[in-house]
């Protein structure tokens, strides 16, 4: 039986890799993927906590399900907007969307 900590280590790693990716990558799609990493890390957390600590209830699992669904919606919208950005400035480079500053 794998210890819970391992899961948590993995999820935490995923989270911060995601954050790193978000900050480091130029391509917005890559950034979206990093976002997915972050959210999935979270969902792992919920599942694991539910399974190991509170097996009595299913709350964490449900949260995970909802989370996945919402993440999907989020991605959809994000993609749509990114396409719109591409249509406008002909690039998906996140550093290029800095018309508004100061």
């Amino acid at each position, binding site marked *: 039986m794998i210890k819970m900590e391992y899961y948590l280590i993995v999820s935490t790693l995923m989270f911060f890799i995601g954050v790193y990716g978000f900050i480091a990558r130029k391509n917005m799609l890559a950034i979206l993927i990093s976002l997915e990493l972050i959210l999935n890390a979270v969902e792992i957390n919920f599942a694991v906590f539910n399974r190991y600590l509170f097996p009595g*209830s299913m709350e964490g699992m449900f949260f995970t399900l909802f989370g996945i669904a919402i993440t999907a919606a989020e991605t959809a919208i994000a993609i749509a907007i990114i396409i719109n950005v591409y249509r406008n400035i002909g690039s998906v480079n996140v550093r290029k969307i800095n*018309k508004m500053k100061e």
Partner: protein
Amino acid sequence: MDFSNFLLMQQEMSLMAVFVILFIYDVFCSDKGKQWFQPIACILFTLHTAWGFLPALTGEAFGGMFVNSDMTVIMKNILNIATLLVFLQVNNWLKSHDTVHKRGEFFTITLVTLLGMYLMISAGNFMMLYIGMETASLPMACLAAFNKYREKSAEAGAKYILISALSSGVMLFGLSFLYGSMGTMYFSDMTAQVVSEPLMIVGFVFFFSGLAFKLSLVPFHLWTADVYEGAPTAVTAFLSVASKGAAAFALMFTLYKVFGNIEVVWNPILWWSSVITITAGNLFAIRQKDIKRFFAFSSISQAGYILLGIIAGTPLGMNATVYYVLVYVFSNLAAFGVISAIENRTNGNTLISAFNGLYKSNPRLSLIMMLAVFSLGGIPPFAGFFSKFYIFMAAADRGQFLLVFIALLNTVVSLYYYLLIIKAMFIKEGDEQSVDCFVTDGYNKISLILCTAGILAIGFLSCIYEHIGSKVDLFNF
């Protein structure tokens, strides 16, 4: 399953009804019929708003997932008013060529956003809260990017969706910690278990960052200016009042209800973030040229003031906060109403210089703008003065005199840049790029009149404040 639960959701129900009607109308109506969309939407929503004022059942539904109390009803009414005012202001903008064919979408999406805010407020469970927040913020991104052919709009949408996604990620991360340490997501069950132990504290902070993002507190505020500037003015208005207000309410509830035990933890956090937020907002606002961006920063510092009420953590504080948001809705929307009128006239010029000599060309508009600005600056006898005073009283009640004093000194700074607008409108002479004399469209007129009435009356009608106060109940809602 017990359908009587739905009786508690009367506002949500009616909102859904309005949404469905409009949606069907939008789908099946010919383009010719679409021109009636605005009036119909407004009328329906007015009915919904009125309906919201009817006496409502209170209690918990779905095993505590959804809570409806007098307080939440009031808050939802405030949000309704805000939305209604926004609806009245969009007419001209929606007529423009790149939005005219999808004006239906604006209304429907906005309604969904509003629904999300309802859920945020009425949540009795963190999952509910999370769903509510996402329901509120995802459509908001669409709205921000609503002007498809305007680069700024797209940029605003992109920035908003990315950052809000990240913030929800961080927030969920925090929630997962909370869940892990308590094993439940229900507010009522958590209240007792919350103790100041590391995991919970970290969890709380991450969760707080999620709401702070929507409330645009420093350091989670950086998106605000860009999105406000880029998004269509109506959306900015909605964003600045409705989503801010909803976030403020949600934060207040969660802090009081769930994290009441660890006030020692969140009190200093709020103290510092309010100080920094107010100051930073003012500092950035001083040197803005674009009026929407300017109001973005001013709204940031306003958020800081809202924290003063929340930090009090007393019935007085809650009362003051809700009242503050109410006044803020009227003041800010008055300002944005004027801005959108000007923007439509000068097709998209939102520089402050466009307001030069406005008094000469459009005295009424400039007077309304002045009322709004003075009210935001907390100048008597306008409503803003009262709300600020009560916020300060609430904070002082908890002995936060230093905080109040800092906030007060900041009001001087804020007055400085508010006066810059007055100066532009009244003292500066207009030039070719400033707006000429024109007539605002009827809907916007109505909204502006409503706002003016609110700004002038709310302060003097103490019954409003007292009514809110009578409904205040810190812990069971």
